[in-house]
């Protein structure tokens, strides 16, 4: 095992992060050096935090360098732990107390119009993500994390799940593609994650594997809360199997990833999107058939809000309920776009009124004008009104 290791990021452009370098020594005790732009205010606190954590991991002799750019405690402790785990085979975890805001659970039909992607190893973006009021935030362990940084990202994401206030957004994590993603579950399942995104999902079997690993961890740790799944379909095979995937246990939404899908087809993604029309419709159809939420791919041109708006309207008209986003400014546009329009609201209101009227009169059959109304239609109308109530911007 190496005697020297480092974790985290440090540099002029880096914020809210730190780099921790540890060199194990034979004697001389702990020598901690701190270089920090906030040393004057938080230097003593950082030093005592580091000492406590090093003691926890039984590190007795080492030279430690902490190069800090305003990292919060959950980041500093994650970076120290990641550095230690490269020079020691400890199984221990250094956990800060979980904040009460991060212990809530979400319902199966929680609205999931927007979900904001956050690179899992970049703490500065996580801190204020919740204030932009997305329905969900995704701490990403997959594409946004460099292969060499996967392990430290998992520890950082674990700590973020416990310590960062996301102001009511559903806490989601995108794990790595299986089988690597199964190892990610150890880091996140015990820490109140609400939903896990399973990327490049092609078969229901994969979801089964994820479910059984989650069950195993939950049983071991005696965890009671639900963990929902959102598979991301990103291939031709996945599209064909999407209904079986959608019907799998704990799956509450089906997302589509169009970059990989078009690559799989050997075609180019266009603005018009003819090449993905079938796949998108298939996802919508499979999701609705399984009574879960169909979620659209991200729109990557973050500077073009008008194009995003048009894209959302098309997505809504195809039957999607939500979309991923990669910039906070996309959130209000997405919320407004998926919100029911005035016509839909009026129509839904009439249906719900007719239902209430019939209930009051004790009628078994609900009718609006000459049309009979089925129970699912009433339920759909109620959902439309609920969506209207949360508004374009939650």
């Amino acid at each position, binding site marked *: 095992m190496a005697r020297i290791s480092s974790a985290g990021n440090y540099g002029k452009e880096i*914020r*809210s992060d730190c780099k921790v370098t540890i060199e194990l020594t034979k004697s001389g005790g702990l020598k901690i050096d701190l270089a920090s*732009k*906030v040393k*004057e*205010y*938080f*230097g*003593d*606190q950082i030093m005592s935090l580091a000492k406590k954590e090093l003691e926890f991991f039984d590190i007795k002799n080492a030279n430690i360098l902490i190069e800090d*750019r*305003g*990292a*919060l*405690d959950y980041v500093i402790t994650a970076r120290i732990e990641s550095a230690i785990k490269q020079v020691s085979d400890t199984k221990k975890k250094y956990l800060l107390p979980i904040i009460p805001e991060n212990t809530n659970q979400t319902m199966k039909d929680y609205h999931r119009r927007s979900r904001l992607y956050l690179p899992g190893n970049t703490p500065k973006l996580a*801190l*204020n993500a919740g*204030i*932009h009021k997305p329905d969900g935030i995704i701490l990403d362990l997959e594409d946004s994390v460099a292969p060499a940084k996967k392990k430290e990202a998992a520890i950082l994401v674990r700590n973020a799940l416990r310590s960062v*206030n996301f102001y009511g957004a559903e806490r989601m994590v995108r794990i790595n593609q299986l089988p690597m993603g199964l190892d990610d579950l150890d880091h996140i399942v015990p820490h109140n994650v609400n939903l896990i995104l399973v990327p490049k999902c092609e078969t229901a079997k994969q979801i089964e594997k994820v479910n059984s690993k989650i069950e195993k961890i939950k049983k071991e740790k005696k965890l009671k809360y639900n963990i929902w799944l959102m598979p991301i379909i990103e291939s031709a095979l996945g599209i064909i199997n999407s209904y079986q995937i959608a019907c799998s246990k704990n799956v509450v939404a089906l997302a589509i990833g169009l970059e990989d899908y078009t690559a799989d087809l050997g075609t180019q993604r266009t603005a018009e999107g003819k090449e993905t029309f079938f796949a998108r419709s298939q996802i919508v159809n499979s999701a609705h058939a399984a009574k879960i939420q169909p979620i659209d791919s991200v729109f990557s041109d973050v500077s073009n809000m008008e194009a995003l708006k048009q894209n959302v309207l098309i997505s809504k008209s195809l039957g999607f309920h939500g979309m991923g986003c990669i*910039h*906070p*400014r996309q959130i209000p546009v997405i919320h407004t776009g998926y919100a029911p329009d005035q016509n839909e609201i009026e129509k839904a209101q009439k249906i719900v009124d007719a239902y209430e009227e019939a209930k009051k009169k004790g009628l078994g059959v609900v009718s609006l004008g000459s049309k009979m109304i089925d129970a699912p239609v009433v339920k759909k109308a109620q959902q439309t009104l609920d969506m209207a109530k949360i508004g374009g911007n939650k």
Partner: protein
Amino acid sequence: MKKADKFVKNAAGRMVPTIVNGKKVIPFMGVNKYKPTHRGAAPRVPTCIDYPKNGNKIVKSLKEALIKSGLKDGMTISTHHHYRNGDYVANMVFDIAAELGMKNLRWFPSAAFPCHAPIIEHLKSGVVHHIEGSLNGPLGNFCSHGKMEGLGYLRSHGGRYRAVADGEIHIDIAVMAASAADMMGNANGVMGKHPFGPMAFPKADVKNAERTIVVTDSLIDFPCYPWEIMGNDVDFVVVLDEIGDPQKIVSGTTRITKSPDRLLIAEHCAKFVEAAGILKDGMNFQAGAGGTSLAFVSFIQQMMIEKDIKARSIIGGSTKFLVDMMEQGLTDYIFDGQSFGMDTIPSLRDNPNHIPIGVFDSYDFHAKGNLTVMMDVIVLGSTEVDVNFNANCVTHSDGRMLHGIGGFQNCMLAKCTILAVPSFRDRIPVIKDEVTTLVAPGELVDVIVTERGICINPLRKDLIKATKNSGLPIRDIKDLKKEVDQICGIPAKSKLSDEAVAVVEWIDGTILDTIRKVEK
């Protein structure tokens, strides 16, 4: 001579000196409590026959002009900052003064910038005794460490005009850069090879200085009109190859921010202005040139288009954004005290509704009214605020001088003054129990807008009522502080020494606070 002596506790509860650089000063007495009744400055009475009949006041060098102006030890030399970080003139003046063996000069700039770092050598060698004007960058650092011989004296833009007009500061020689001038000294900032915009800051100087030197790199045929400086006030004209770099007027901040958090702050400001009923036809407002302020302007612009609203005037700090708004018919007038970009100059030069203003018109506390008082809303940035709405814009939390006061204090008199700030920067909370340096008394700060919520000063019951059901995240400032402290942790107190290095003057000329030496 002691830099600062005989400290007393002023009405804001701050310990301030009553003797600064050997002169008696008055401690802050409370907002609107001090109204002097004496008469103002009386300039020297010149006679026209003592000046060339052909009007030609050109001398061959700046050195000659300074010698002819009677440059002596202990004099006060003023410059203006319309070239901002691209100014060449101030450094030239003090290099010449050093060459002539001058000592104990007082530099009285309308603002200093990092480009003026060479003045540090003159402070060390005793050519310059002290600076009265904004201290930031390398100069701020130098002064913060107690290395300046005299005490720093920070005034607002309006306060600087007032100090000259009231007779508190007597300028011996005003050296005024002009992008264009004629032989008589008529001058402006919109013509010539390097135009910089309106000439708001030199007006107090040229009217009251013992001698005025106009320095230009573009001599044009008489008459140079419009004449923002009139030749009748000018003693000498100097023509040089270069007097400043207008490209450096624009700092990195004059762009709409891309930061989602700062955009959210700006959006909160705009929505607040709308909810409070301020956004309406005929409104007058001011917004600065920082990234968040520009984003605020951009949100307001969208709202005005959507609701078909037209402002009567916008005060700048003019930027291309304001010019665009006027050209789109969203405001009748721009009042322009300072240009933040070359691209505003054609409008200023050619559009009669783009009006150049001076510091007297916009900011002076001892004017018979001023434009800022008439503004419906002003959005400003700040380095720190506290739970009593007091604000700081000059020092960092460690006490180091970062920025000048600029128009910050003067803007406090507007009908609604909003401070747009992030609730923390790099783990350091911006909302404090008590600001490190008091620059604006809390009773004048109406609203503090952050990314995590909007705090309305309890004194503004009208604004609280108007925005009650707006759906905006309106919060008690103490709750917000608690949330931020939970995120960041509670920072240790900075270690500042007892030694005073500068004072902050309030707009009425009294001393509001003392800036202390930084230990490290």
